[in-house]
Every structure is written in structure tokens, then in C-alpha cells.
């Protein structure tokens, strides 16, 4: 297990390094030059040279890349072009809001998705199974930002049941939860369908196995068989998918944060893109990529913990 953890972590770090190198390479390959991007068309040559030196862009690409990684390793993500604040403090100030949102989304998707999947698997081919199947495909297909917009329109603007914008008053837990409901709904909805389908498929497989037949023969109630014995195995593929899901949820969170005007890493990067604040964009992309890779890696660890076969083939 330890060897697997070390190898897998090494691979994760390698992937992040290659990903950032690719992004850096692309930045140098495409026609837009960061300095022009930041300063705009009216910049004087002196301003350009000054900024180039400040950002280290006058040095060779390889040197820049190495400097970038050395800085990242020491926690330095560069400086906001406009406010001169360190990017890392901006990102880490915003990150908790995004994490709350993503976790709230995952949790309600799990709470609803797992029972839906189990029910479908047990009552296979029943009317409810087919109905849940259609709902699942439907929720997977609908874009999360349309869900966010419709939810905003219906529950906040028309019915006025829930607040429309912001995260709520800091410290007031009830208010913050009320503000979290609609964004978390839009972030999690497509995962309800995903989880239900995954659980159904793996549940059907597990229910056919010998040890389940044995507990059935012992006369245990179906509820107990499903949730205590079968789900334990059937949940594994779902955990792996959830790891990948974090990355897609970060994408949905960007939209949820913009639609509901919530602070967070999505709002941060969006504002930075609009104002062409290049170091903030790079820093946010790096942090969200690290988050994504970390989530998939941890999901793989959990899967390997339950299933020794995974440890062998990395």
C-alpha cells in the first residue's frame, strides 16, 4: 500500500508539473504576449520593458519556468498586477467559499443519488427504475449554469423564498446556509444522476455475487443486505468517479459563483480574466488544477484501500 501511495503521489506531482509546463508552453506559442495583454494597446515601450523585468519575462522561457516552479514550491504565486497583493493570499482567501460550495453540492448529490441507485437496482426494470433512469440522464445532460439561472429566476426572483446573491452575513450560520442552497443545488444536480447510475450499475453486479446470495439464504432483510453488505462494494466505482467529479464541480462552481455573485475562486479568476490580471489567472488555474489532481489521487487511494487489485497496476 505504501509503495502504491508513493508511486501514485509521484505521478500526481508529475502530472501537475507537465500540465503547468504545457500551459506555459501554450502561452509562449500563442500570439498574445502577456505584457501586451496586461498593459493594453496604449502602453509605451518603457512601460513594457519595466513590466517585463518585474515579471521576469525578459529571461529565457526555461529559466522562467524553473523560477515559476521554485516560487510555487515556496508558496509564492506571484503578485497581482493591479493591487500588488500576493496572489497566494488572494486565492487562499477565496478558496474556502468554493470548497464549501463544492462539498455542499457533493453531499446532497450523494444523499439523494445513492438511495436512488440502490432502489433502481433492487427493483430492476420496474416503472420507478425506468423513471429514475430518465431523470438521471436528464440531470446529467442539463448544463449546470442553466440550472443555476432557472433556480435563481424561480426561487429567488419570482417566489422570493431564498436569497439571490452573496454568501450571507459572516458568522450567521443560518443565513450562510440559506445562501448556499441554490448554488449547491445547481452544482450538485448533474451528480445526482451520475451517482444514481453508477450505484445502480455496480449494485446490479454485486447483488449477483455469492456472498450476497449467502446472506440472503440466512434470511437477512433486504434493506440490511443492500446497505450493509452490497453497498460496501458497490460504492467503490462511485468514489473513483467522485474524484474526477471534483474537477467538473469546480467548473460548475465558477458559474454558480458568477450567477449568485458569491465570492470564491471562480469569481476571482473571472474578474481576473476580464481585467486581464494575468498572474491571478495563472495562480488560480494552478491551485484549481492541484485541487483536481489531489482529489483524483485521494479517490484512487480510497479505492486501493478497499480493493488490493488496484494497487498492482498503476
Amino acid at each position, binding site marked *: 500500500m505504501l509503495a502504491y501511495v508513493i508511486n501514485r503521489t509521484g505521478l500526481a506531482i508529475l*502530472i501537475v508539473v507537465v500540465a503547468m509546463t504545457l500551459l506555459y508552453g501554450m502561452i509562449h506559442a500563442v500570439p498574445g504576449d502577456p505584457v501586451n495583454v496586461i498593459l493594453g494597446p496604449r502602453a509605451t515601450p518603457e512601460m513594457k520593458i519595466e513590466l517585463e523585468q518585474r515579471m521576469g519575462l525578459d529571461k529565457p522561457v526555461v529559466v522562467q519556468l524553473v523560477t515559476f516552479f521554485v516560487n510555487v514550491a515556496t508558496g509564492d504565486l506571484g503578485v497581482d498586477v493591479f493591487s500588488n497583493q500576493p496572489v497566494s493570499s488572494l486565492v487562499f482567501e477565496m478558496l474556502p467559499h468554493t470548497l464549501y460550495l463544492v462539498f455542499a453540492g457533493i453531499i446532497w448529490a450523494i444523499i439523494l443519488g445513492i438511495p436512488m441507485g440502490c432502489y433502481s437496482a433492487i427493483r430492476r426494470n420496474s416503472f420507478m427504475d425506468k423513471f429514475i433512469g430518465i431523470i438521471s440522464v436528464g440531470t446529467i445532460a442539463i448544463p449546470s449554469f442553466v440550472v443555476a439561472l432557472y433556480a435563481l429566476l424561480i426561487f429567488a426572483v419570482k417566489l422570493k423564498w431564498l436569497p439571490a446573491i452573496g454568501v450571507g452575513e459572516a458568522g450567521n450560520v443560518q443565513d450562510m446556509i440559506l445562501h448556499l442552497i441554490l448554488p449547491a443545488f445547481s452544482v450538485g444536480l448533474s451528480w445526482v444522476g451520475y451517482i444514481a447510475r453508477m450505484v445502480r450499475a455496480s449494485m446490479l453486479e454485486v447483488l449477483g455475487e455469492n456472498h450476497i446470495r449467502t446472506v440472503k439464504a440466512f434470511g437477512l432483510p433486504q434493506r440490511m443486505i443492500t446497505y450493509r453488505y452490497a453497498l460496501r462494494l458497490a460504492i467503490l466505482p462511485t468514489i473513483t468517479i467522485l474524484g474526477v467529479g471534483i474537477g467538473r464541480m469546480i467548473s460548475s462552481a465558477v458559474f454558480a459563483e458568477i450567477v449568485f455573485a458569491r465570492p470564491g475562486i471562480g469569481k476571482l479568476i473571472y474578474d481576473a480574466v476580464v481585467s486581464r490580471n494575468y498572474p491571478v489567472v495563472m495562480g488560480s488555474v494552478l491551485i484549481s488544477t492541484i485541487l483536481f489532481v489531489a482529489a483524483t489521487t485521494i479517490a484512487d487511494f480510497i479505492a486501493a484501500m478497499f480493493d488490493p487489485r488496484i494497487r498492482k497496476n498503476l
Partner: protein
Amino acid sequence: MTQNNSINHSMSGMSLFLKKISRDPLGILGLILVTGMIFSALAAEWIIPYDIAALDIPERLASPSLDHFLGTDHLGRDVFSRVIMGGRIALWVALVSTAVSLTIGTILGLIAGYGPRWLDNLLILSFDAVRSFPTIMFALAMVTLLGPSMNTVIFVVIATSIPAYGRVVRTQTQALKHNEFILAEQSQGAGMIRVLLVHMLPNVIGPLLIIASMDIPVVVTIEAGLSFLGLGVKPPTPSWGSILYDGYSFIRNTPWIIIAGGLPLVLTTLGFTFLGESLRDIFDPKLNKEQ
């Protein structure tokens, strides 16, 4: 004679497809939605009652009426006309980027699966690296550099979907690599290009096309999403995303614009998904259900 046969063959394939899909209500629904969407995109010029950029300020933010089926936006433009034209943009972006990424992904996947080990490792590592960016984050980084435009959207979609196609093709190629018919071909002196194009490609293309059809909703969503953020297709070109943004800005005045911009997007993604699922069940039941 041979030509005749092949026509007959494809005819029977088509009728088989129609026969099978007729037993799948969701598949039919998908087929109808997709056909309707493609038709309205192709015939957009003849369908739209107003010019998509024609302003009518006194009539701004009007509710649906016989003059304007879906009302008007904040500049008095006819929302129905813009929605129909937006469909054309969405379809164009989806088709171009899917075709290009499918081609590049297939070539890279064939190379990774058939080529030397080190090249395989290198390609797989780069695939994984590209996939490790959350899509929207990668898109935002590219928009910062390239500026918002339809071409940026297409580029982002191509870059992020190549790895998915590449991986599928690689797995299939590796599975086929040691089959007898490939070994036989090699022993008769066939070159790499011939083996790959004549023997590997026909065997990997089927599942790939199904995955591509299920990927179209994702592409449509990315285009609409970026346009919603004001980072995709440039105004005044209509896109479902930019219509949604206009609606979002005036959400307290009129709900019609958001409903009108969102509904076709939902129907299109649902249509392609239902059709894709149905195609997969008909042509390739083995393909992993959760892919």
C-alpha cells in the same frame, strides 16, 4: 453490381437502425429533438422573422406576443430570431471542434497504442496533464491570452477533448495489436501506415463516433457557458449563452429572455444525450455504460 450491393447494405443498416430505435421512446425523442435542431440551424435564414441585429428601442423588453414569439431583449431585438441563429452558432462550433479533435485524437491514439513504449508513455502523460485542468479554468486562461472569440472557444474544446478520444483509441489499438489478422498483415510486409489506416481504424471508429455524439452536448455547453461569461462568441452574433446573459442582466424586469435562451440549450443537450445513449445501446452494447 458491387455498388448496388453496398447501397443495399447501407439501406438495410439504416432500416435496421430505424426499426431498433422505434422501440426506444427516448431514442425517438432524441432523434426528433436533434433533427429539429439541425433543421432550424440550416434553415435559420428562412425561419427568422426579424433581422438578428435590428434594434427597436421603444419595443424593448416586451413580453411574448404574435409579433415577437419570445419577446424582445433590452435593445428591442427579437429574441426568437436570435435563439434560432444562436442554434446555428452552437451547432457550427460543436461540429467543427468535434471533427477536428476526433481526427487529432484518433491519430495520436493510434500512435500511442501502436508506436514505441516511450512515445506511448509521453502521450499518455500529456493526455493526463491536459485532463487535469478543470475545463472552464483552462478555457479562462486561454481567453485571457487569445481574447474572446469563436475561434478561442473552438480551440479550447479541441484541446480539452483530444485526450478523451486519444485514450479510447489507444486502448482499442493495444487490444487489437497482437491479434492474428494484424500479425498476418505485418508478416506479409505491410507498413505501419497501412496497418493503422486499413486495419486498425475501421475497428476503432465505431465506438468513437458514439462517444463523439455524446460529447456534442458537452461542447454546446462549453460554448454557451463561455458566451454567457462574455468570453465566447462576440456580440452582436447571437449565442444561447449571450442571450442568457442578457436575460440574467434583466432578470428582475422580464423572465422571458432567460427562459428563451435556456430552453433550446436544455432541449439540445437532452436530445443529443438521448440519441447518443440509444445509438450506443443499438450499435455497441459492450461499450462501458458510464463512459
